[in-house]
């Protein structure tokens, strides 16, 4: 069995969850294994029933210890379920929380860890994963030497799964959480995106660089465009260092890595450190007044011009299209 692990965030399975279902179906076909899902959180029933439209067996694992996410109770609950079910592959999304509990799970199960993968296949019954490495400059294939194996799946890479022919069943199971799992206490949760889509999950990312001018330039140029596109807002290191935007928005080597369908780089010069965080985007657009800016070497579409003159009419033209 392949067990996918998701977090109940609202009443519906998220886009990342459905990408995970698709990745699991691919692996299931390759290794001849069926797919089951576990939904973890405080209130998991609605999300579990939604996920049952896609997966034949859904385990609903609810506990106050599992909301909000903390890696240790999560690891314990997943370990108990995966061991009980004899899961051969455990898969989760490579979100920050996913990246935080999957290594723990691999250590507990003495299992190989395939991290942040973009494709999965098999050879001689062993699971192979493709992933990016060396600041996303290199693509590598890694083989897990044994089963079970723990896999984290890069968001925005796999297609979103279609519903199954018939709805699956939902079974409530007790969360097996140990005493020491409660030792990390969390508080004062803040949402960084100002109501926007999370940077790593965004299909479109609008990033501003030093060429945007100042903090006010972000509210005048970058945010309105992001809002008409339903996009996430990104920044370069220079912008973050200047204090115009929070660290959470930084795209690049020491910030976040994004792989959206469309990446709009506004007033971004294109330093190598920045490129490593976005060079796997499907389509890259650059607007910069310096025709020699390195960003133009990696863009699909570019405009050589001042962001102040290009971005407002661009935003208007996008809103007109949306009617």
């Amino acid at each position, binding site marked *: 069995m392949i067990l996918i692990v998701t977090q109940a965030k609202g009443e519906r399975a998220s886009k990342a969850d459905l990408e995970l279902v698709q990745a699991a179906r691919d692996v299931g076909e390759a290794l001849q294994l069926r797919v089951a899902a576990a939904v973890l959180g405080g209130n998991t029933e609605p999300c579990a029933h939604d996920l049952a439209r896609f997966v034949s067996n859904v385990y609903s694992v609810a506990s106050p210890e599992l909301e909000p996410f903390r890696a240790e109770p999560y690891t314990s609950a997943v370990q108990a379920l995966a061991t009980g079910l004899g899961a051969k592959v455990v898969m989760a999304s490579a979100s920050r929380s996913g990246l935080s509990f999957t290594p723990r799970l691999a250590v507990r199960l003495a299992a190989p860890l395939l991290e942040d993968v973009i494709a999965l296949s098999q050879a001689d019954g062993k699971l192979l994963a493709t992933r990016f490495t060396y600041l996303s400059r290199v*693509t*590598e294939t890694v083989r897990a030497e044994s089963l079970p194996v723990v896999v984290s799946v890069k968001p925005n890479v796999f297609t979103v799964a279609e519903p199954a022919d018939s709805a699956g069943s939902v079974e409530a199971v007790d969360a097996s959480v140990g005493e020491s799992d409660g030792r990390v206490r969390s508080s004062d949760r803040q949402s960084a995106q100002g109501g926007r889509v999370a940077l790593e999950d965004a299909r479109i990312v609008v990033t501003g660089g030093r060429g945007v001018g100042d903090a006010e330039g972000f509210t005048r140029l970058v945010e309105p465009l992001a809002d008409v596109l339903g996009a996430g807002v990104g920044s370069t290191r220079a912008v973050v260092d200047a204090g115009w935007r929070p660290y959470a928005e930084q795209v690049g080597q020491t910030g976040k890595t994004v792989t959206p369908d469309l990446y709009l780089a506004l007033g971004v010069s294109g330093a190598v450190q920045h490129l490593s965080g976005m060079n796997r985007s499907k389509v890259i657009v650059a607007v910069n007044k310096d025709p020699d800016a390195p960003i133009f070497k990696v863009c699909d*579409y570019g405009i050589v011009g001042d962001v102040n003159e290009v971005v407002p009419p661009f935003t208007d033209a996008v809103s007109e299209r949306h009617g």
Partner: protein
Amino acid sequence: MKIVTILKQVPDAEARVRTSEGSVDLDGIAFVIDGMDEYGVEEALRIREGGTDAEIVAVALGPQRFEEALRTALAMGADRAVHVETDVALDAVAQAGVLARLVQEEGADLILLGGKEADWDSAALGAAVAEALGWPLSDWTTELTLEDGALRARHDTDDGSERLEMPLPAVVTTQQGLNEPRYPTLPNIMKAKRKELAKRSLDELGAPQPKSVTLRQEIQTRERLGRIVEGDGGDAARELVRLLADEAKVLP
């Protein structure tokens, strides 16, 4: 208390990485201390400078070049260094077992390391080391204070940030924003040469079997159109919207 910082020496971000015969060829490449690991060294120094009596031990598990990262940490102010020198490529889970044994020998109270390794693009080591030791973890940490044997931190979550509180011993992974690392001064670089840098062998620490192996590595650069849209600001902007909608089909 004792603080262990875990370090790697990685290719410079500006270095042109090549592959030959299906694996990354690092010949002639410039290496630097991993930037996120460097935040860990800096934070350890700040904890000590804040009045906590602490010994700071820099630790590395990897090939000979990792010694340079340890020298950098010593020059920044770490007290001594331990290098488990090996050319065996170990995955994060296997590395965690070795490092956990070393940390237990040292009797450390706090481990600091980078949130994401700039060579393997892996964020697994911190969590794997924490699990191997049975310790709590604050990952993607942007603020850190120690008080009365407890660790308080702010760290990034999936959709923002939150405050964490946990008992020591604990593991902390860093990210940008935690601090601004200092440059080693020339006198400190000279002084660092006399500090202890002990070598350990992998065999002494339980020589683990890799659980996963890298089969091949290749450079796959995406062909970019590189199409410059001409015209004044407004005309170019409208043409670009048309191209993104009709040709690239990436607009909602």
